[in-house]
């Protein structure tokens, strides 16, 4: 009996205390809350530190996506890079789970703190590459896939990637 009365009082006290704490409610949309960079909102495609398109069209994001809302087609550029000829996200299906970002081996696809994506027409929720691609590196500044990959591209020959030895001279039989 006494115990429960105490509990009641404790509860009332706790609630009372809240009257003196700072309010968490913000006057959205006039006032915008702080969202951490890791917040999972609108998806973007980023560039590598050299300013080149990061996405190599490996399709891992698409296959990781639980609602199958990513579709793309790979192509090969003149310089030997793989890139997406088109890259489409159907945001009307996207559940912003971030699985694509987890899967991406190049850090190309990233979720951003922007969540304001309402549209009157659902068709407008379909984003193509030109709507997704941004100019910067996003959250991850340094990673450059082609610097670690073995595939040669213009400007990065065989043996020129990080931790790579000069190409082997196959004619040599020296030990």
């Amino acid at each position, binding site marked *: 009996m006494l115990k429960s009365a105490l509990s009641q009082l404790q509860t009332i006290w706790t609630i009372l205390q809240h009257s003196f704490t700072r309010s968490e409610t913000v006057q959205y949309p006039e006032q915008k809350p702080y969202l951490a960079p890791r917040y999972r909102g609108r998806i973007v495609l980023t560039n590598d530190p050299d300013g080149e398109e990061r996405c190599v069209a*490996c399709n891992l994001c*698409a296959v990781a996506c639980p609602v199958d*809302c990513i579709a793309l087609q*790979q192509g090969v550029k003149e310089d030997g890079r793989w890139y997406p000829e088109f890259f489409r996200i159907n945001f009307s299906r996207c559940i912003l789970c971030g699985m694509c970002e987890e899967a991406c081996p190049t850090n190309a696809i990233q979720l951003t703190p922007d969540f304001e994506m309402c549209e009157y027409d659902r068709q407008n929720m379909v984003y193509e590459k030109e709507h997704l691609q941004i100019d910067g590196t996003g959250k991850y500044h340094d990673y450059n896939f082609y610097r670690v990959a073995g595939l040669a591209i213009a400007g990065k020959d065989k043996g020129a990637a990080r931790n790579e030895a000069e190409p082997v001279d196959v004619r040599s039989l020296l030990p």
Partner: protein
Amino acid sequence: MNIRIDGVEYPATKDRNLLETCLGLGLNLPYFCWHPAMGSVGACRQCAVLQYPDEEAEQAGRGKLVMACMTPVSDGARFSLETAQARRFRQGIIESLMINHPHDCPVCAEGGECHLQDMTVMVGHRDRRYRGRKRTFRNQYLGPLVHHEMNRCITCYRCTRFYRDYAGGTDLAAQGCHDHIFFGRHEDGVLESEFAGNLVEVCPTGVFTDKHLVHDYTRKWDLQSAPSVCAGCAVGCNTLPGERYGRLKRVHNRFNAEINGYFLCDRGRFGATWVNDERRLDYPGLRGEDGRYNAIDHHGALQRIVSSVERGAVAAVGSPRASVEANFLLRLLAGPARFCPGFSAVEQPLVGEALALLRASRATVPDIATMETADAILVLGEDVSNTAPRIALALRQGVRNRAYAMAAGLKLQDWQDAAIRNLAQDQRCPLFIAATAATRLDPVAARSLRLATPEIARLGLRVADALAGDNSNDYSHDNSHDNPDDHSVHREAAAIADGLRDAKRLLVVSGTGSGDIAVMQAAARVAEAFRDTGREAMLSLVVPEANSLGQALLCEGNGSPDLDALAASAEAGEIDTLLVLENDLYRRAATDQVDRLLANCQRVIALDQLDNPTTSASHLAVPAASVIESEGTLVSLEGRAQRCFPVFPPHAERHPAWVWLLATLKELGREAVSDWHHFDDVTRGCAAAIPALAGIAAAAPDHRFRNHGVRVPRQPPRYSGRTAMRANVSVHEPKQPEDEESPLAFSMEGLNRDQPAALLSYVWAPGWNSNQGLHRFQADVGGPLKGGPAGIRLLRANGGATPLPRHATAAFAVEADEVLLVPRYRIFGSEALSAISPGIRELVRPACIELCAADAERLGLADGDGVQVGDNAAALPLRIDDAMAPGCAGYTAGYRETAGLAPNTRQRLRRVAHFSPPGPTVIGSDRGGRHG
């Protein structure tokens, strides 16, 4: 016999090694270098297991590491896969392979179906501990078909074992030493072997990949595929074409133990992407007054076809590359007497005779796997490497039976690949080749003769006589006994017969490729004579196209008109409407002849996939679905009816020909088709109407079949992007297309397991993403599929009711200014559709005339001259090729420029003044192949 693995008793068979046994039991044991068709060499050390000498050692965990692929199983043997020692060893192997492996998976065309990825996951290796520098290689340009990325090699040696040992190629080898081993050519250049494309599937990593796919890439999990049949030649190899976004991306092998096994030829693998060609017809086109075509919808087209058919006398040209069903419906429409099967006038009797001989002969008509069991082979006049390439690969295996016989003597098992090759060295079963020119099989032949076609026939007859011990027949004209050539033919025949003395299973290969009925007949007689000596004989006759034999069966014995007869009745004004089904007539007869035929018909309706000269000459061009987009039955050269299924629904108004024709027949109110609604109804109708084709309905399960109550999916379980693929068109996703004609689904729903073999739509099993997972579908590792054989044989061994004809052939001699015109086929170019596929297109060389130097000198011609043959209009460049038999001029067959030439006729060659040779057909250069 039983063995113990990790304490569990399992049944085992003696002729299997431990790796095969484990895989057959469904155990996961990683491996690289073993290949079910190529056996073991123990090179990669990946398949290590622990073997215990006895029970006591097993209890104590004391055993020795052995390579499962090199370990025979014996009763009571004890092994462990799971013991820590074996696991650590296997993990160590993968880790060491990964030391130099590039960080390439995202940009590697093998990713997602990579055996190395699968095995890495299987052993549980995750983190790279090595921090040193990675070895790198420069890649080579290997031609427009195969892409090279050498950094990814794990030195398993599968590529060279396939390319050199299995397929007989010479220009790919291991080079360098220690950890610098490089697999490639001595210098950049197109891989020479016509089976090079198999490297894509044989290599367990992304070193060799499909160049077309690399440049329009889709991961395996995103490819929609369905069981299909290669339309490249009459062998009928089983394929798995893969599609995404309405484009054919690649063709993979579909295992069929009786036909192609694990391997396709490059025409089949790379020759189907023409279906993406921009010259494909999308909508029916009606030719207007100005000669231009106006698109109309399918109702309009159907009405016009119907009214044309109703208005006057109809004749039809079918196609030996179209399905049995489409041809059957067309024949129903025009009537048997007005249905031309669509062969050229030269081919029609040849194919008819091939069928007649197969029926009459008492020899076995072998499938490819049976051909590989031959211990002696005679090839008469057929250049199989170019007309039915997969057979050439089988013949290369056939000659190795000597090696297996020697091995059996030493109690070596068949999978001991390195030991057996070492033992046999150059000893092979006898292969005798008689051809008008050099063939690619010559290097493995015991004797290869260059003879003019009639001589080949004579050689065959003499071999038959020698086998029968009969020397009384004289197949030549009176003077031939003085003819030194004849003596040599006689001598060669005696030598061949002598070479066949010890043989037990003779395979005789011939076909329509020689252009001479007598050659095929001679081949049949050799087989017959051999059989009469109480031994087993096989007879394989190659016919030109994917459904040539089906067409011959459809038209058997009712005197269907050939193209010449059709032209004659058109000339006589007896044809108002001519329907042409999937057939470019300009490849079947001389241009002026076809022009006249088409001009003499009031209306020409062409049903075809591509814009070609025939559709361009038609009044109504109707788009048809390709073999990859429609269902159909094709009859292969061994008389096997096989079903292919659409891989994806065709675009626009490209309906399968059978759909167009069935709709037309229904509109016409034809009684026979009134209750035919499905493809299966047509198949059954055809089976009922044509006794020779009675079996075709059983080629695959019909559309009502369900696999454990559900359909068989065309899409792998992790098909991605379904809610975005079409979102650019509309965000409201349509329902998946329904397939009313087959038990397959255009979706990932259903069960891709336990189905009949004809319904295998992709190979994937948990943990086995690559094509190596096939053993999960096989009843016996490397053996037939669990679902039984695919397709059904229509020709059965028979009693030899018809006696084989014995034709005398005249001794061959040419006048001083003449040559004998002989057809020369090319794997790339002689088949019209594969020849326009990207990649292959770059390898197609213009048609030419080939002569040996002596003949060229005799005729006063030089290399590069333009020559006209007889009154054939087109001038062709002359090539001097000493591989040609003397007196013979080879012409490139299957090309439009040579369509009017008749094989084995004596002709004069005229030199054309001011000849400019046709430009190279090479389009563009290598796409990105040189990077790195």
